[in-house]
């Protein structure tokens, strides 16, 4: 078979839904039958209707919608909720047939679709229709009470579509979301050239929709189940198969919003990368996210701050206490803050929402606080996939994204995230608490920063009404000093510096040596460099562990 002939056989029409075209490698088979199957409320009608509507809007394709279950007027009215101008479309391109059997109709003996198809054929040629939807054909056929007769009528329909060169979409209900359970329609997927199964599953009280291409004759297709949502503009399919152009890596550096942190990172983050900040509750994740966003706003960049389960106004108020003023940026529209109730939707719906927000706001920097909230809805696997796609979404859009993730485990040293996103993050900052002599102090360390040098030291994270700073930890007698102990040590060093010129000379010597060492980062060449470096490699964890035992 020549390529040309093969191409003619495989001619497809776009569904107008990006993700659906992805999983079907281009859309529906032209002049063939596509079957949409699913339980009640799975979105079969909306999907079929959307394909007609987008064909009519973008290509002016005339089409017929035959509604067997719902009143055609109601189908059309519901469609308006998605912002589709049905009256206008019906005037020009779409024709609805109300094929809802009236309740008072009496059935006596066998019937067939010959008449209906003759009528539709005449209508199709009159309006030049190319597409036709038979929505919930099972409702009418079940009146036959004869599986063999039902099959015969379906076959008649299939033949009729082929004869008239029409692209057909047949939707049918199946029970339990399994194609196999529909004995009567068991053969339908065999008859159709393309069969798609829509399902709706509830995990942890959250319902998520998925679709899967069961078969596609003569065409490659995605075998996996893919998530989809019915959003305010209709069906959106979350295909991960989409081929997106690889974004050009940026070499520009942007500030984290904390000067001392920029120094630790050797000049901030790379633009277009993604940053993960992990830590348990109260370690300062949101504050660091706020600093990042505030710095972006000061650079006059459009920004987006999405918070799960925390009111935007509360965040603005809290950040003001560390001298971060988001209010003017919010007022100017440079910053958009969205507060989302995690349990209000499935992780997939959250993804679609973030995607929409990014499209609307066109931000250069985004903060999502915390991304781990997704793990609470819709099952672990789905949430993981969503978190991953969120990261790729931002990366592909060239957006610098900061994600925070809550660590809830009892082991503070278990540096993993519930969504396993740490491996695909470009930079990973870990926040923790250190308990020392009755003080709880915040500590920050950089676990990784791809393509960049960074400090390997843990620092104390200090929030004050003048802003956010990082202080170096003092190592003394095998423990790291933080908080009051660190301040005392700093004071002691300061005093001794004033009194002993020799000490000062020694410090300078150390500094020179440091500068000569290319392995050490600029951060460590800071003039406020620590005096003793003997215990700096010792992880803070060892220290806290020791303290725990002594108490």
């Amino acid at each position, binding site marked *: 078979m020549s390529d040309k002939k093969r191409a003619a056989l495989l001619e497809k029409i776009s569904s107008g839904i990006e993700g659906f075209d992805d999983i079907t490698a281009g859309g529906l088979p032209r002049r063939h039958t596509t079957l949409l199957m699913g339980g009640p409320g799975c979105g079969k009608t909306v999907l079929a209707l959307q394909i007609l509507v987008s064909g009519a809007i973008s290509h002016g394709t005339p089409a017929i919608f035959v509604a067997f279950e719902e009143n055609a007027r109601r189908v059309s009215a519901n469609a308006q909720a998605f912002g589709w101008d049905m009256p206008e479309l019906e005037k020009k391109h779409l024709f609805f*047939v*109300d*094929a809802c*059997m*009236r309740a*008072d*109709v*009496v*059935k*006596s*003996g*066998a*019937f*067939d*679709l*010959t*008449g*209906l198809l*003759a*009528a*539709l*054929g*005449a*209508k199709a040629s*009159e309006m030049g229709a190319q597409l036709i939807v038979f929505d919930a054909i099972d409702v*009418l056929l079940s*009146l036959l009470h004869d599986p063999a007769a039902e099959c015969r009528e379906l076959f008649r329909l299939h033949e009729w579509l082929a004869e008239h060169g029409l692209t057909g979409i047949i939707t049918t209900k199946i029970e339990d979301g399994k194609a196999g359970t529909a004995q009567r329609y068991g053969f339908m997927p065999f008859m159709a050239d393309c069969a798609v199964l829509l399902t709706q599953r509830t995990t942890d009280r959250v319902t998520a929709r998925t679709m899967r291409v069961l078969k596609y004759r003569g065409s490659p297709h995605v075998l996996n189940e893919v998530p989809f949502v019915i959003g305010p503009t209709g069906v959106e399919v979350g295909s991960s198969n989409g081929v997106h152009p690889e974004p050009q890596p940026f070499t520009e550096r942007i500030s984290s919003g904390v000067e001392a942190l920029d120094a630790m990172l050797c000049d901030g983050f790379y633009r277009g990368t993604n940053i993960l900040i992990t830590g348990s509750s109260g370690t300062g994740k949101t504050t660091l996210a706020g600093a990042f966003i505030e710095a972006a706003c000061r650079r006059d960049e459009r920004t987006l701050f999405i918070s799960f389960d925390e009111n935007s106004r509360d965040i603005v108020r809290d950040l003001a206490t560390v001298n971060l003023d988001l209010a003017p940026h919010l007022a100017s529209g440079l910053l958009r803050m969205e507060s989302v109730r995690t349990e209000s939707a499935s992780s997939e719906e959250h993804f679609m929402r973030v995607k929409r927000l990014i499209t609307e706001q066109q931000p250069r920097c985004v903060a999502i606080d915390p991304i781990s909230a997704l793990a609470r809805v819709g099952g672990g696997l789905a949430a993981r996939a969503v978190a991953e796609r969120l990261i790729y979404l931002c990366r592909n859009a060239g957006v610098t994204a900061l994600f925070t993730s809550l660590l809830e485990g009892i082991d503070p040293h278990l540096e993993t995230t519930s969504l396993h996103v740490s491996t695909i993050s470009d930079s990973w900052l870990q926040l923790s608490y250190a308990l020392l002599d009755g003080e709880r102090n915040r500590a920050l360390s950089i676990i990784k920063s791809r393509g960049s040098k960074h400090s390997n030291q843990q620092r104390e994270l200090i929030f004050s009404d003048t802003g956010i700073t990082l202080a170096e930890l003092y190592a003394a007698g095998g423990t790291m000093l933080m908080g009051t102990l660190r301040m005392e040590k700093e004071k002691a060093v300061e005093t001794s510096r004033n009194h002993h010129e020799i000490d000062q000379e020694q410090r300078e010597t150390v500094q020179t040596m440091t500068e000569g060492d290319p392995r050490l980062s600029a951060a460590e060449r800071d003039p406020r460099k620590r005096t003793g470096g003997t215990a700096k490699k010792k992880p803070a964890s060892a220290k806290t562990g020791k303290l725990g035992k002594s108490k």
Partner: protein
Amino acid sequence: MSEVIDAGGHPNGAYVFRIYLAGGAPNSVRALANLYAICRRHFPESHRIEVVDVLKEPLRALAEAILVTPTVVKISPAPEQQIIGNLSEEEEVLRALGLPQKEIQ
């Protein structure tokens, strides 16, 4: 295009039917034969049957909201009643027409 089969008789008490057929399709042929038989048996002097061939008047079926063939519409006496199928289940037909079913026996 429709063909009218008029048994004449009483214009007021007449049973008026319209039957939508798909040419010579088996179910359609059977339905027409069954309708004749029922009419002859139950109201021989006062019935009228209008036959609409959907294959010849396809757009009329759409306009008149006819979904399947064969479909019989009892137009008179009121109220209008639709019966789908080849009318092989006579009891159902009689019940729909409000006739006592004993009469068939």
